[in-house]
């Protein structure tokens, strides 16, 4: 490997030499061409030149040595003399320098005045007019008296001008030639006489090639060869430039620019900006707008705001202003006051630069409808009630309550006229009993057992139990037996006493309602302490609970029909009780106060759960037949669905009514529920509850039933479902009930 490498190296060197030569030959040839001519002129014989070089040096040295020795000879004789000055010290007095003949010191021999460029008149009061180079006074030349002057006028010296030389103070004398020269200069002529500015052209060199040249010698070879010496010098320069010892030449304008740049420092605030691709997603920071005419201290008058514009601008909220300044006119730039908003403006600009996200957001392009939960269309959820099928007319005044009998054949209603009426489904009134003359019938509820036919109705403080005579003897007898079963218990039951032995008033008195009502079928009456608002049966039909909101301590009462016994389960309730229901399958008891629904375990005698529907005033609620869900209606127009397993807050809130929701009711067999509102409408919902814990209830509003008239701001007061069919009955304040199917 070594030999080829070496050879290569050598080759490299040779190449570099060649390149050097090439460089020198091309770049410097023209520059040095003049010198070459001179050389050729001086060096007549190149051969002798080479040989004589060392001799020349010697000769030069010799000459230098002799010159130095001669100088040594002059110095042996000092050019000063030592004299004593006034103090007796030595003082060197140098001899006058005698300038040599060819000295260009033209002023040397002229003893000029050294006072400088001051007017001579300063010396008018002195006998001298200045000082010469040696500090001696130059005495004022004697000014002749008038006689002398006269004499001199008679004998005018040659070249007299009558002028005084200001330098010397002597009369200035000029020769005739000098005067002639002055005259010529004054008349802008060529100062020299007989000078011909336009001489005839003598053609010393011609462009005409002579046929017969003066010399027939051939062109010397050196005329065609590049100079080795120059090549050496050029190579030297090139090496120096390569090594950096000689900096290359810069054009003057660039140098000037560099100089200027050094003096003035500019900072590019966008210098650090990262170069971003030109892309649609990149948003560069906005640059400040250049100032416009209206920002000028002296804007054109059309930019100046009028008085009204100024007032409008000042009235406007600072955030709403289109511009943050008002154009103003000043006479001069120095009268422009400082800009008060400067710091604020810079701050806001900085905030904008580093806080505002300059990123184009990828907006999700999703159809909002696709985000909605997939609800089945109402058509698929049939059957549900859609039209009014029967109108039950007969009540005078409002109908406050309706109820379907457990077999679905009968409808009971109660209203402000104090009557309880039982209707068949086609709208025919089958039975009526006036249970109260003053109080409206607040609630009617059938006992939820098919083996009896007992209707509980509430008017004021009384609960009536009736067996309408519409059923078979066996059924009627069974019903009567259930009602009468408790009479034995009432007498046997120990009368509760208070601590001091006094008889405590029982929570309710159970008695016969009187023969007239008994003949009509109303067989039992229980009177509690205060007016009852709601009533609800336990599923077995033995217990029923009543709520009398005004009854303070005894507001919620649980009655046992088989024992004619009433109990007050709660000593104290936070807030007014509104409604109460039994759990459909477990020993739980729900009590709604104005804002909350409390769930109690009746066996363990403890509070299980507190539901907070978030309504201001609960009007009523109903428990799903499955027992895990609850719907709550409120006077603030809301219908709330609670999932007891989910949370204490409502699972769904529905606002479909413009007025208070009065009643809510689940269908006992079908996935339907309805609410009744004061706006005269019923809203029917499909509410399917699945046993799967992972799946929430599907709630779909399916139908708004309208038909009831609004009477004194009351619309529909109660609603109930047929036990099996998708039919519902509503009680209206207009005195009618309506069956919807």
């Amino acid at each position, binding site marked *: 490997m070594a030999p080829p490498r070496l050879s290569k190296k050598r080759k490299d060197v040779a190449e570099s030499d060649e390149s050097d030569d090439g460089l020198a030959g091309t770049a410097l040839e023209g520059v040095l061409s003049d010198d070459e001519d001179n050389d050729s002129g001086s060096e007549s014989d190149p051969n002798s030149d080479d040989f004589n070089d060392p001799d020349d040096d010697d000769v030069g040295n010799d000459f230098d040595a002799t010159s130095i020795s001669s100088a040594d000879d002059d110095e042996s004789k000092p050019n000063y003399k030592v004299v004593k000055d006034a103090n007796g010290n030595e003082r060197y007095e140098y001899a006058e320098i005698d300038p040599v003949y060819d000295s260009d010191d033209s002023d040397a021999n002229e003893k000029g005045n050294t006072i400088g460029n001051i007017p001579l008149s300063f010396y008018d009061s002195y006998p001298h007019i200045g000082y010469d180079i040696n500090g001696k006074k130059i005495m004022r030349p004697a000014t002749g008296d008038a006689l002398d002057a006269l004499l001199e006028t008679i004998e005018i010296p040659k070249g007299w001008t009558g002028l005084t030389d200001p330098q010397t103070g002597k009369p200035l004398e000029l020769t005739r030639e000098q005067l002639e020269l002055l005259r010529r200069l004054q008349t802008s002529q060529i100062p020299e006489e007989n000078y011909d500015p336009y001489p005839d052209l003598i053609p010393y060199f011609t462009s005409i090639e002579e046929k017969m040249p003066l010399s027939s010698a051939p062109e010397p070879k050196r005329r065609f060869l590049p100079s080795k010496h120059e090549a050496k010098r050029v190579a030297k320069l090139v090496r120096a430039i390569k090594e950096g010892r000689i900096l290359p030449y810069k054009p003057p304008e660039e140098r000037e620019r560099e100089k200027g740049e050094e003096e003035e420092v500019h900072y590019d605030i966008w210098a650090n900006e990262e170069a971003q691709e030109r892309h649609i997603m990149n948003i560069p920071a906005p640059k400040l707008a250049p100032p416009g005419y209206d920002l000028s201290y002296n804007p054109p008058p059309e930019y100046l705001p009028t008085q009204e514009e100024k007032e409008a601008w000042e009235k406007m909220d600072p955030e709403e202003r289109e511009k943050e300044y008002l154009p103003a006119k000043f006479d001069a730039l120095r009268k422009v006051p400082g800009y008060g908003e400067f710091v604020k403006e810079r701050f806001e600009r900085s905030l904008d630069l580093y806080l505002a996200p300059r990123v184009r957001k990828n907006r999700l392009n999703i159809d909002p409808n696709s985000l909605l939960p997939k609800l089945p269309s109402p058509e698929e959820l049939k059957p549900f009630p859609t039209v009014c*099928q029967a109108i039950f007319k007969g009540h005078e005044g409002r109908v406050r309550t309706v109820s379907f009998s457990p077999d679905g054949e009968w409808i009971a209603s109660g209203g402000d006229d104090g009557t309880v009426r039982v209707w068949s489904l086609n709208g025919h009134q089958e039975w009526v009993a006036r249970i109260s003359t003053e109080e409206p019938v607040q609630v009617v509820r059938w006992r939820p057992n098919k083996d009896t036919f007992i209707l509980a109705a509430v008017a004021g403080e009384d609960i009536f139990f009736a067996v309408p005579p519409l059923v078979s003897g*066996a059924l009627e007898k069974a019903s009567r037996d259930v009602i009468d079963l408790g009479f034995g218990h009432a007498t046997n039951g120990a009368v509760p006493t208070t601590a001091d032995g006094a008889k405590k008033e029982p929570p309710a008195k159970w008695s016969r309602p009187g023969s007239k009502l008994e003949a009509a079928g109303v067989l039992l009456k229980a009177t509690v302490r205060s007016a009852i608002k709601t009533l609800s049966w336990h599923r077995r039909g033995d217990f029923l609970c009543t709520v009398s909101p005004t009854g303070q301590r005894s507001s919620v009462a649980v009655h046992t029909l088989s024992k004619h016994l009433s109990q007050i389960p709660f000593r104290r309730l936070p807030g007014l009780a509104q409604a109460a229901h039994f759990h459909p399958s477990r020993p739980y008891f729900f009590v709604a106060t104005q804002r909350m629904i409390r769930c109690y375990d009746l066996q363990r005698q403890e509070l299980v759960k507190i539901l907070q529907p978030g309504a201001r005033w609960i009007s009523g609620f109903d428990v799903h037949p499955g027992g895990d869900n609850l719907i709550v209606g409120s006077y603030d127009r809301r219908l709330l669905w609670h999932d007891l397993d989910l949370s204490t807050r409502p699972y769904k809130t529905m606002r479909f009514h413009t007025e208070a929701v009065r009643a809510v009711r689940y269908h006992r067999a079908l996935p339907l529920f309805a609410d009744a509102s004061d706006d005269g409408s019923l809203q029917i919902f499909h509410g399917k509850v699945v046993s799967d814990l992972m799946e929430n209830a599907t709630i779909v509003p399916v139908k708004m039933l309208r038909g009831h008239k609004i009477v004194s701001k009351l619309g529909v007061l109660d609603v109930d479902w047929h036990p099996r069919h998708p039919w519902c009955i509503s009680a209206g304040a207009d005195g009618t009930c309506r069956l919807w199917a």
Partner: protein
Amino acid sequence: MEIDTSPAQVKVIFTTTEPDLQLPESGQQLLVPGDIKRYGLSRILNSESMLNTSSPIPLDFLANGTFLRTSIEEYLSTNGLSSESTLTLQYVRSLIPPVYEASFEHDDWVGDVDVLSSTSPAGLGASVNDRIASASYDGLVRVWNPSGETVATSAAGRGGGHTLRLDAVKWLSPKQIASAGLDRKVVIWDYTESSDGFSGSLKPNMELWGHEKAINSLAVNGPAGRILTASSDGRIGLWSSSKKTAPQADPETLPSAHSSKKTKLSSAANTAQRGPLAMIAAHDEPVTAAVFHPNDNTVAYSASKDHTVKTIDLTTSREVSRLTTLHPILSAIALPGSLIAAGSSARHITLLDPRESAKSTVVMTLRGHVNMVSSLAPSPDNEYSLVSGSYDSTCRVWDLRSVHHGLEEGGGSVSEPVYTIGREWLKEKKLPAAGDGAKVLGVAWDATWGIVSGGEDKKVQINRGRGLFAS
């Protein structure tokens, strides 16, 4: 050759099933212009060369089983037939609207009506006076003569009659009426009439006890002396109309078993009390109708609010088959053509085919009512029409032949009413909302009487029922 710009002539063959309207042999084939419509065809047929009727008989034309409502040309083009094909047109007597004839006023709602005439099932073939029996909600059965006079009124509760409202009444024979209602019993009345026909009497023959809840409907088979009842207790009762053959009533079902002294006293003890031949617990929910098979009195059909129609073999008291629909059924009749028409609470009438061999159970749906269909009556004249009474205050007459195919629930084809009979006092008015005050509760159709309907307006209304359809 002259270019004929008039519409193409269509070759038509006229046929008919009515013997009194037969055409002479020569007139049965005819070339008629293609743009001719029903009226033109009727004119042609009534002309001298054809039927040569003394007074024009309006005729309707059936092409391939459907009524011709357009011109012949349009009919051919819509059915994709060539105009050169021969069209067979069956001509029938045109329908005359069921004109209002009379109203009989009652004291209370009329729950059911039945008619007696020589053409009615009860009086078939016999020479009887035309009578209407109406069951009213005041518990009384009234018998009316054609001039609107009450011939006889049943006794009230104390006199052995009904104590609660009546929902069903039927003529068993010209001498007997069966009525039933909310008081759970069927009363067989003996009807006697004075010779002048202006006064009569209804005497309770016997009471049939056995149901625990209201009886919703009655069906009678006079020749066999059988009565079917449908009750809200979910059972169907089969009873004998004869006091002799009827078994003794179960004492548990009698009201005296439970009632107090007072009611015991009030109930008339002088009426015989009998029990059912069979009590068939077929349904879980109220049975709304039980009808005999039109030709076989050992087969009954029962319809219930539990959405089913069941076929019941009365000899074994067993359910044979069941048809399930989508809605509670409030009324049902058996049509002669082995179909059952069931009026549902979902405002339509479903025609069901109870035969085992039937491909689909729901044959046809009749839509048009806007409220529950409470009663149905078949046409006395033919197999393909019926009348329905609904809570929407109308009776509607249906022709099962005029159908179009619907894609709605239940499948089958859909038909629309031919005539709508409103209550006469509500004439020219809008239908009351929810049928308020004018619900039709019972309807009967007889060749003599026409369409008789009673309802909430305490009236029995009679509309002309003949000639509504041509056969």
